[in-house]
């Protein structure tokens, strides 16, 4: 771990090159580096012990998982959620924008004709291969109708590979969602304003 910063001078007039001298590997003293490291961790250890004993645990950054859960920000990009309309049906119209925008190509949609002519198009198969998903949130940004969102959950263990290809039933109606998250955009308001 070199401690001497290397300087890169860019001489403006003539383009002379400055040779950088670095100490040879075998003659470097590593002791000071190690000492600083020990000092830092030691200080944090002592502080933690003191705080837990003196009854002020909230100052401590560590969390007692799983009894306590760390509170992530609302913009946290966790597992995907397919939002639903008021009547519980999927909001997604299978427009494939999320699949197009996804850098990992892990969203596969098959669209089909909806029998209600005002809906026209909806996905009969919507799968996200979570093992390939990088949770970048591009799909959420691409969706024009707030149909897919990155929810707050992140602890989603699974046993064999197939569990990790989430289908519509899981994405929109898994138990934690309690019947589906109703989307922000209210259907009727959209048509009333004629937008």
């Amino acid at each position, binding site marked *: 771990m070199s401690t001497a910063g290397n300087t890169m001078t860019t001489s403006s007039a003539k383009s002379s090159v400055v040779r950088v001298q670095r100490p040879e590997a075998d003659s470097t003293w590593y002791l000071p580096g190690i000492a600083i490291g020990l000092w830092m961790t030691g200080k944090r250890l002592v502080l933690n012990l003191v705080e837990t004993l003196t009854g002020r645990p909230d100052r401590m950054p560590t969390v007692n998982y799983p009894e306590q859960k760390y509170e992530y920000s609302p913009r946290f990009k966790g597992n995907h959620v397919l939002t639903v309309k008021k009547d519980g049906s999927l909001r997604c119209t299978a*427009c*494939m924008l999320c699949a*197009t925008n996804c850098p990992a*190509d892990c969203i596969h949609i098959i669209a*089909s*004709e909806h029998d209600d*002519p*005002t809906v026209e198009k909806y996905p009969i198969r919507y799968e996200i291969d979570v093992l390939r998903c990088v949770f970048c949130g591009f799909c959420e940004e691409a969706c*024009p109708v707030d149909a897919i969102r990155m929810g707050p959950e992140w602890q989603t263990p699974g046993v064999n590979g197939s569990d990790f290809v989430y289908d519509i039933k899981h994405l929109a109606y898994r138990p934690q969602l309690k019947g589906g998250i109703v989307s922000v955009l209210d259907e009727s308001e959209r048509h009333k*304003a004629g937008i």
Partner: protein
Amino acid sequence: MLKCTLNGREVEVKEGTTIIEAFYQNKIDIAHYCWHPGLSIAGVCRLCMVEIEGNPRLQIACNTVVTEGMKVNNQSAKVKEAVKWGLDFHLINHPLDCPICDQAGECGLQDQYMKYGQYDSEMAEAKQKKHKVVDLGPRVVLDSERCILCSRCVRFTDEVSKTNELGIFNRGDRAEIGTFNGKPLNNKYSLNTVDICPVGALTSKDFRFRQRVWFLKDAETVCTGCSTGCNIKVHYNREGLFRVKPVYNAEVNGHWMCDEGRDVYKFVNKESRLLDARVVSGGKAEHMTAFEAAKRVGEKLKGAGKSVGLVLTGSYTVEEYEAIMSYFKTEVGTDRVFHWINNPESFESFDGLLLRGDRNPNTRGLVQALQKHGFSAQWKELTEALSTGSIQTLVVAGPENQVWFPDFKVKVAELAKATRLVWMTSGKSSALDELKGEVTLIPLKSYIEKSGTFVNHAGRAQSIRPVTSIVKGALSLTEVVSAFRGEALQATEVVVGRSENEIGRGRIHNEFTLSRGAW
């Protein structure tokens, strides 16, 4: 020839060309919807406004004829403003349902808004509500709200298919395209209206919601539906082919193609193809690669003489005929080569525009090859030879599009009388699967996967190039012949898809280019 300047560039045009044709010929962008090179001038979308020197008012380019020394400009601020407002008027009553519209990605409104619009709409009033998902006929669906009333489809049914099914009913912005409800849009060229519709008003039922167009690549080839040989463009991706659209070719098919040709992609996809070779003898079936099966057949054929018969259909290329006929003539030594004509009664029929009764792309090429090699055997000689057993092995190059061979099952039964049957085809069929006796099935490449030349009814040679590969092991007839001879297979032709310079054209951003953001 007339000289005129388009946007400051000096160009020469023929007498009587309109300004928009001059722009078109010199590849200069001009905003337009209702003008179509194959239809009459409507002049209703009012987008192709240009400024002509010496004329205070903007003129529409589609109806103004070029005169000598005319200076035309469509880049001036006044024209840009006019086109911007023209687009605004098109879009104020347009339903923003791009997510559920099949035309998204190749829509005239999207493209030209990005090129000429890029404005913030000030329309906050309620939009005009019209009929959605209207069933116009067996193959076309209409959405009146998306329709910009450019009247291309109406002019098409009046001028090209001459069936007058479509009309614009009501008046003003309550106007809607439609058919009289007793007479649906079901002429043989109805899907052309879907191609020329610049927006998503008319969409094809067959392609409805099946794929997004930016996931499709396209490549030009020749339609194998009938002997007219229309130039077409096939849209495909990894999962197979999705649809077929016509390509302009002045001498052959103009801008149009028939509806039956639109299904030409269906028998090429994996689900209707023979995937691997099968040798059935003594009730036991053995699966192997096509090359292996062909080599085995080749050993039996060598020098077998007259006891071998060959049945050919008109769906193969001239090169393939040349290879297989010379092989059968010299190395097999038989002259019993038969031409299987699928529908003799309507063979010569012609519907006046494009569709011909002869449902094979290369009948003329086959007939020429037969004459060149001196084969003139008649079909009845085959039936008689089969019944007397004088033909032991029968090699059949089966039809590629079984849809247009109504007598397919009957013929299969008839040809199965031969003691040893070798059936080479690209499409699978239940009739072939149930064949008893000694049968060898060899999968062939479809016209999408091989290069070659077709000769259409008028003797015009048109070449096709490999577009993609659907069935890995399939062979073309030339490769089968080299397998018969036992030679090693040369490197299978590189699947080019389309030449380098074409990749830049059309859709830039799709899953194949893998260069995100190259928007």
